[in-house]
């Protein structure tokens, strides 16, 4: 494969990390336990951070170091820690039962990946970055996280899906354009953090109200 060998080693490693990212997304999609789900989310953040650093080293884009640092602090350390604390405080450790069974979810997941790859193909060819092939994976990560939010009936996995979706978007920004301008990235990080805090507040409110974090309690408001 001439095209592949033409890539420098760092590019290959980034590709590999992208593949690992996709793998983790799938693992999250089929994971039943909440604590493992949080660990997977942290792992996803770590892979993201690593690949961002690699891109930064290879291309000399200074600001990507900051992005990587934000990712490390926010998504590898802070958010998983908050989530762990929440789980402990709320004392919820049960299995995450989805609305659809796991094999079906996986099959849908494959379809989603195919769609994402096809959608990203024409665009990634226009991008001028080293990492452009990974745009498809980024989109797939976003859509898989979306799928996870749809198929899970509990609050915590939905939130993790939401955060994982943000990871995918971050990866998309890195792979398509070497990251967004600094101001925007700071803003996004801030939004995510505040969002997380609000989620935390919500967990407590929901639990006080229903004695459970099952979202199916939240299905009373429907059109009659």
């Amino acid at each position, binding site marked *: 494969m001439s*095209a*592949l060998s033409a890539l420098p080693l760092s590019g290959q490693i980034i590709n590999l990390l992208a593949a*690992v990212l996709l*793998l983790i997304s*799938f693992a999250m999609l089929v994971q039943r336990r909440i604590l493992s789900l949080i660990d997977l989310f942290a792992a996803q953040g770590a892979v993201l951070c690593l690949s961002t650093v690699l891109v930064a080293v290879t291309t000399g884009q200074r600001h990507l170091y900051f992005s990587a640092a934000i990712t490390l602090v926010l998504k590898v350390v802070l958010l998983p820690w908050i989530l762990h604390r929440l789980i402990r405080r709320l004392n919820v450790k049960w299995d995450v039962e989805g609305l659809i069974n*796991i*094999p079906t979810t996986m099959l849908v997941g494959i379809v989603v990946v195919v769609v994402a790859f096809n959608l990203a193909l024409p665009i990634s060819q226009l991008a001028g970055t080293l990492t452009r092939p990974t745009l*498809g994976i980024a989109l797939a990560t976003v859509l898989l996280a979306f799928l996870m939010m749809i198929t899970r009936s509990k609050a915590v996995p939905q939130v993790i899906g939401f955060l994982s979706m943000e990871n995918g978007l971050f990866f998309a920004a890195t792979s398509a354009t070497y990251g967004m301008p600094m101001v925007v990235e700071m803003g996004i990080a801030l939004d995510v953090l505040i969002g997380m805090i609000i989620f935390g507040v919500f967990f407590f409110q929901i639990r006080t109200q229903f004695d459970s974090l099952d979202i199916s309690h939240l299905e009373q408001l429907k059109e009659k």
Partner: protein
Amino acid sequence: MNPAALTLQLLELVMALLLAPLLMGWVNQCRAWTQNRKAPPITQPFRLLAKLFEKDVVLAYNASSLFRFVPYMLFACMALVCVIVPVLSTDLPFSPAADVIALVGIFALARLFIALAGMDVGTAFGGLGSRREMLIGFLAEPALLMVFFTASLISRSTALPTIVESLAHREFVIYPSLAFAGVAFILVSLAENARIPVDNPTTHLELTMIHEAMILEYSGRHLALIEWAAALKLYAYFSLGFGLFFPWGIPQGTGVGNVAMALPALLLKLAAGGFLLALIETLSAKMRVFRAPEFLGMAFLLAVIGMLVHMLLEVPA
């Protein structure tokens, strides 16, 4: 035909026959260690085989000739696989036969016969085991094929020697698709070799056993052959895995120097792989039989994603 190559081919066969039980013993040993038990000696499988060969064969009244024929068939199939998978060199007389699709076919053939044998005597356990075995095979085979396809897409060939050569002897390139295929392959191997978490090779618990249920009626040398064949199968999967994912150390030539280099590499990889297997088995819990489709579905999915990733990342745009 090159006599040196022929010798090497023979050597490969003999080595497989000897190394396979040793590998089994090594895995059991590692498992005992990781579980804080006293380990049996590494040669324990040989002792078992010797004991079984000495014993008389006891056959059920209604066993047909198929029942007696199956152990030989099984052993032959696995030995054949071990011979054609490139281990010591990619250029051996039997190498042209090593097509990955054919390999899947040979495994399927063996599976068919052992499932028939399980049902032959007509006991409840035999039928149960056969049914479960076919269920697992039905799900594992497509996944295995997908793994092979991913590997062959990279080297554009389904011939194992070519795959090994193109991965081992070209410029070093990272293939993310192989990472997926590798994980899928491990899952399939666990299922196919009746290891935890799909099956437990060491129990005869009727609720969970699969492989053991089918061979419950065998005894004496028949059982010995089947056990040996099982060891060969494990060995074959290990060498397949090495060929596809860690082909470094498998030389192209057939000279003495090449073999001298290949052998330590092989032993090292087997030792590491065996330890890893023991570790996986120790760390995971046996799952319910009904979870097995999910497990293999995941393997299939990973293999498919491997292929997709290959299309996305590794095909020149």
